[in-house]
């Protein structure tokens, strides 16, 4: 098993955070993981992306180069930039709230999630990223939701543990949105 | 027979390599005596520069490190941070401190690093054979200013003490000279005070010592002392610029 996931969007959408959560959760499940951010002036321009690899074997390249198994894209520039990095049959999870377009590729599976609206239903627009992550977890069926919630406390600290229920709901909303 | 004079225990028995008439020897003696009189010699670590006093690590009778050209204040910083209870000093010439090491000396002062710097200003590069220093006077002939320092080309000589006195972390700044016995006594007092500044934990202390270079100035030792008095002191006025004791 090897999952190579790209996460991309505007700075402030919590892209890096969901990447870390997925990597940490993978580690808690005793898999090999890497989390690789974009860095430098690229970050300052307002777009953010990271690559997460979760594998049963030693992780080779932590970068994703035309071999992504999934991509979570939170805005249009991200979809344009990263759809080409997926393998045939790769999963492209699209934030429909902000992306009013379809991918150009037809050999990949596209999933549409109204992440911002679903987050607002929970009363907090900030958890749109978690909605998207929930959709990914449902589709990939690799990492347990429970592991992500454990990772949440590890990554953000005990003082944020009161936010776990809200984030759990967001993950569930995302999962429901892509359930067949 | 009664002993009336003794070489300071702050110096080793290694004979100085300095040229005849050079005042480095006097300044070494003043530093060594000060450390002994303050009772800190055995708890002192010195940093030698690159320049005429490059071999100072052989002369001071305490632990020493030899620094790269201009970097003595940074090396001294590293030592002092490891041994905050020891006395740390750097001994630097004008090429070392005022030219290549201008950055390091400004920042050691600005951090109020609790070290003492002895800055020997003889208005020339001695060891490399008499080239122009940033402290060379306008009109002064050197091997790289054969017609005399040209202000339009090289600017005016830099006044280090005045510059460092503008920095809050410099708690003791004084310029002295070793051209006369009276001035040597004043120099000793200043050097001792500069070490006391460190021992009391006040901050950075520097003593700029106007010194001669008979060899590269092309003068006899006596004439060199006169040249210092007539040419250097008017441009580099003696006196205290900052004193932790007076809140100055």
């Amino acid at each position, binding site marked *: 098993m090897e999952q190579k996931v790209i996460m991309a969007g505007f700075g402030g959408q919590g892209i890096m955070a969901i990447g870390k959560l997925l*990597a940490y959760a993978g580690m808690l499940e005793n898999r090999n993981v890497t989390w*690789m951010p974009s860095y*430098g002036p690229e970050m300052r321009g307002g777009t953010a992306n990271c690559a997460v690899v979760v594998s049963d074997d030693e992780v080779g390249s932590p970068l994703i180069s035309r071999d992504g198994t999934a991509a979570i894209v939170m805005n249009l520039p991200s979809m344009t930039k990263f759809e080409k990095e997926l393998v045939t049959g790769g999963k492209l999870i699209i934030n429909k709230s902000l992306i009013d377009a379809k991918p150009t590729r037809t050999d990949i599976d596209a999933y549409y999630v109204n992440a911002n609206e679903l987050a607002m239903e929970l009363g907090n627009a900030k958890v749109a990223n978690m909605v998207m992550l929930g959709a990914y977890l449902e589709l990939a069926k690799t990492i347990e939701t429970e592991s992500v919630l454990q990772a949440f406390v*590890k990554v953000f600290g005990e003082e944020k543990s009161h936010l776990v229920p809200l984030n759990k709901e967001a993950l569930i909303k995302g999962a429901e949105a892509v359930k067949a | 027979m009664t002993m009336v004079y003794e070489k300071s225990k702050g110096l080793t028995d290694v004979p100085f390599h300095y040229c005849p008439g050079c005042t480095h020897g006097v300044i070494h003696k003043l530093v060594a005596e000060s450390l002994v009189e303050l009772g800190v010699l055995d708890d002192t670590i010195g940093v030698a520069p690159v320049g005429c006093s490059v071999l100072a690590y052989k002369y001071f*009778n305490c632990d020493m490190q030899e620094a790269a050209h201009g970097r003595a204040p940074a090396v001294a910083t*590293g030592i002092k941070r490891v*041994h905050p209870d020891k006395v740390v000093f750097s001994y630097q010439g004008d090429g070392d401190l005022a030219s290549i090491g201008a950055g*390091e000396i400004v920042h050691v002062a600005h951090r109020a690093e609790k070290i003492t710097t002895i800055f020997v200003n003889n208005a020339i590069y001695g060891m490399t054979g008499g080239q122009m220093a940033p402290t060379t006077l306008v009109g002064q002939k050197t091997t790289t200013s054969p017609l005399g320092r040209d202000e339009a080309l090289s600017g005016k000589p830099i006044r280090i003490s005045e510059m460092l006195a503008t920095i809050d972390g410099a708690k003791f700044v004084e310029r002295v000279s070793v051209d006369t016995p009276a001035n040597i006594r004043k120099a000793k007092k200043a050097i001792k005070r500069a070490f006391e500044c460190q021992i009391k934990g006040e901050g950075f202390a520097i003593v700029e010592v106007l010194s001669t270079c008979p060899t590269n100035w092309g003068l006899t030792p006596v004439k060199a002392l006169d040249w210092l008095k007539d040419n250097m002191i008017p441009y580099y006025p003696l006196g205290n610029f900052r004193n932790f004791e007076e809140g100055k």
Partner: protein
Amino acid sequence: MSKVLMKGNEAVGAAAIKAGCKYFFGYPITPSSEIPEYMSKALPEAGGVFLQAESEVAAINMVYGAGGAGARVMTASSSPGISLKQEGITYIAGAEVPCVIVNMMRGGPGLGSIQPGQADYFQSTRGGGNGDYRTLCYAPSSIQEIVDLVILGFDKADYYRNPVLIVADGMIGQMMEAVEFKDPAPIDLPEKDWATTGTGGKRQPNVVNSLFLQAEELQAHNDRLEKKYKLIEENEVLYEAYGLEEAEVVLVAYGTTSRIVKTAMKQAEAKGIKVGIIRPITLWPFPHDVFKTIGNNAKGILTVEMSAGQMIDDVKIAVEGRLPVYFNGTQGGMVPTPASVLADIEKIAGGTK
């Protein structure tokens, strides 16, 4: 202790503290700035001192002072900053002061880029400063390995009284992986009776110095250094190697590129090509001897680097002309892709390269 997910740069800081490093002097530069950032918080908590120097030049000279004064001390930077430190590194090597220097390499020359690079191989292994000196040079390829090598590096630095370089790249600095901080194996280290600690009136003064004005004295000093370097060459070579006996193609890569090469190797093996790997963990001393174990099936060696070809010189020296040595490299912050490495493997195995 259980595993934690950590960024490479922060793991370097945590490993240094674990190794008993009490002093850090540095100057920020991308992509290694998280090291001083981490140390500024963690070192004071561990009873140490973090100081942001006015320049890389000052920082390395502070390291020289602190190391000479007997402390475990570290600095870190990235390529252009490491260039500035070369003056200090040669003094430190000459005066035999132990310290650890971390280089998170980026693209060059000059200001280059901030993306990962491996173009400081020459600088790291040939000595970027003046004179005959060597620095023990570790090249980790994962966060766990950088942690282990930083801890080992402090011991080796003290043992040999020599600067130790940790040479990684921006990718390892920025990447997060799971890491475990194991207790270092105990090692017998000599007393630092040479350090400048103040005589206390109990001994002759110690002098930390790299100046020997008499030619004979300097030659004797160099001979002694050379003996030490030979000892390091005999005892400190580290590498990972497998599949050499049967391999048709042998891949040589270190650090980040070794990971990419391993991905390509799997792809090649799926196509039925036998591939071997040599991953130097010490760049100096270089693992020359392992190249002698390459079997008779080998058609060629492929060296993969994020440079225009630097380690390849050492590979050629090690191969002694027995096999053709090919190169796959990227520069400027570009990272070689497994696909391009696979294509080269196929060409070499098929005899078309």
